């Protein structure tokens, strides 16, 4: 029998209020309407209200792992709270066949004065595990937590990582149908993160459905094949993870730095040198290929002359999370002069050992004696981006999925 949708979310919206006092008053109004059995009016929005989520729809089947991407305030946590039944939608509906377990804040309900062992009962009960079930699983939970003798010490002396371990150890012994995971892997050491990941992948393989929120693109891509991208409450994309990551990175860039059209900065007394743009072009080729060369040209305007200066650039992955290389022109005694008016600096990077992907470049002009930056590019505004093109081979696909950056020239010895 083909399973119907496990989770169906249809056109849900949720509004909140920015002002605390108004929010409390609206709460009284909403409760009064609820108590009198009258429908809530989703629209029009009352004073200071805004849509935290607007018209979001998707379906999940057993075994699906869905990533949720979006900047802070995009509506991800609101969506998880709606799925968890903590708050009710203002429009649409949510249908879930099965039990939901949130892995949102591990160790909920821990009493600082009680020991780890005693808190296992409390946290288990809050998550729906009766005492006798906790008794049966107690040894397994303690083994999983790996906090040793601290299990009989008051939790107030635990670090955040230890609390997370203990909380996860309890949650890992639940058998829900839908798991909601929200940034729990941010706390905890590498061993803990690996354990969490293993647990999640086993859960998905056994037919559970998972919704995963994280800002770590590596984790999202290793667990989820499908992602939603949220932007200011709206769903802007529902599809494959690599594409979702690309869209999310673009949104990040644009929103952090605004549209380039609006930024017309001219040199002034506090910023006498402005870098207008950085151009990246293939060098002696039609396009940029792995192993090929690029020419980087930095265009600047200056109110006055600076001497001696040097300049350089740093190369980053598209999401700007990994810095790949930094190169600054050596000041070798030859005077590098920055004239007043417009000018440019240029360099050639030969034999790029990078795999076909998008990259970002940031740049700067520095005082050659002190190293102080005179002007920078790609920090307060969008960085310059370029793409290395390659054929759609299996090897290149593999590189993209594995998030590789460089391709090494290896000579295999038999």
């Amino acid at each position, binding site marked *: 029998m083909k399973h119907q949708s496990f989770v169906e979310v249809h056109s849900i919206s949720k509004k909140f209020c920015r002002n605390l006092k108004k929010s409390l008053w609206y*709460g009284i109004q909403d409760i009064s309407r609820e*108590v009198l059995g*009258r429908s809530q009016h989703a629209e029009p929005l009352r004073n200071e209200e805004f849509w935290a989520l607007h018209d979001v729809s998707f379906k999940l089947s057993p075994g699906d792992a869905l990533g949720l991407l979006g900047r802070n305030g995009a509506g991800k946590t609101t969506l998880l*709270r709606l799925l968890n039944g903590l708050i009710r*939608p203002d429009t649409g509906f949510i249908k879930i066949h099965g039990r939901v377990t949130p892995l949102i804040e591990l160790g909920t*309900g821990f009493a600082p*004065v*009680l020991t780890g062992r005693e808190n296992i009962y*409390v946290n288990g009960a809050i998550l729906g595990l009766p005492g006798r079930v906790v008794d049966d699983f107690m040894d397994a939970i303690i083994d999983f937590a790996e906090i040793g003798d601290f299990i009989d010490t008051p939790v107030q002396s635990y670090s955040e990582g230890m609390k997370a371990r203990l909380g996860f150890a309890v949650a890992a012994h639940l058998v829900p149908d839908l798991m909601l995971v929200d940034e729990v892997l941010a706390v905890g050491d590498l061993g803990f993160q690996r354990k969490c990941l293993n647990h999640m992948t086993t859960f998905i393989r056994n037919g559970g459905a998972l919704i995963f929120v994280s800002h770590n693109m590596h984790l999202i891509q290793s667990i989820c094949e499908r992602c939603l991208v949220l932007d200011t409450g709206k769903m802007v994309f529902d599809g494959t993870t690599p594409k979702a990551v690309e869209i999310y990175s673009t949104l990040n860039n644009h929103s952090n730095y605004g549209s380039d059209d609006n930024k017309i900065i001219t040199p002034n007394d506090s910023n006498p040198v402005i870098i207008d743009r950085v151009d990246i072009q293939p060098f002696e080729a039609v396009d940029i290929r792995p192993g090929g060369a690029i020419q980087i040209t930095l265009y600047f305007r200056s109110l006055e002359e600076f001497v001696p200066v040097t300049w350089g650039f740093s190369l980053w992955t598209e999401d700007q999370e990994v810095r790949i290389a930094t190169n600054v022109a050596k000041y070798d005694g030859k005077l590098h002069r920055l004239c007043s008016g417009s000018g440019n600096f240029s360099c050639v990077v030969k034999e790029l050992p990078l795999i076909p992907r998008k990259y970002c470049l940031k740049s700067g002009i520095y005082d050659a004696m002190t190293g102080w930056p005179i002007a920078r590019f790609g920090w307060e505004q969008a960085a310059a981006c370029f793409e290395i093109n390659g054929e759609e081979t299996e090897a290149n696909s593999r590189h993209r999925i594995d998030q590789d950056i460089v391709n090494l020239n290896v000579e295999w010895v038999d």
Partner: protein
Amino acid sequence: MTWSPEILYTPVPLLRQPLTLVRGMIRDLFAARHLAYRLLIRNLASQYRRSLLGYLWAFVTPIVATGGFVFLNSHQVLRIVETNVPYGIYVFVGILLWQTFTDAFHCPLQWVLAFRSVLGRVNFPREALILGALGEVLVQLAIRIILLLILFLWFRIGLTSIILLAPVAIVALIGLGLMFGVLLVPVGLLYGDIEKGTHLATMLWFLMTPVIYPPPISWPGTLLNQLNPVSPLLTTARELLIGSSLTQLDGFFIVASLTVLCLCIGWMLFRLALPHLVERVGS
């Protein structure tokens, strides 16, 4: 794979689906038992593990308060009308019952405020908080009853058979306190004034309730007595405990019946209001 029952979240008011609402209330009340027990143990252990006197604190307040009023009465500072048992016992029983009422009144909001962060993070049967609060009231009561029985033995107060009915009256008194407490939770969780206001309210209420004095027999005292729902319950409970004649039975039955009805209404209000409270209060 077997499908569990379907969960459905919509904006449609729950009152328009009365069967679903009532089924959910009863289901969650049963499901809440284990959690209420765990949370009660958690709270009691947290309170008393960090104190030297521990559970003895439950004895201290009634003893000190009783001692104070007996002293004031014996030195004619407070002119209290004659009571048919030693005044100390009269006051002690009154204070014990009054404290039980105020515990039941304050506990629901205290528990909901103490667990507000858990409310906003995990979807557990919310009735566990009310059941847990009730459990805490009963634990405090049990400790005080032990003390009361010791005092009865000490002062050789004879136990009459009607004392067996006293639990009924005490349950009604707890029910009344719980009813007011639960009704206050929605507004109390939103506005801090309520929590502050309840302490002031119980102080004034104490003065208007025949706790340290017998029920008034002249106007305007009788009017206050009739308007005060605690009065018939507390008076009847005390009369059953100390074995004197029952003077406010009519009032007792009226208030007790209304309490049962209003407690159910309060429970329903609590359930309807909670999702709205969670979204306004944050975690």
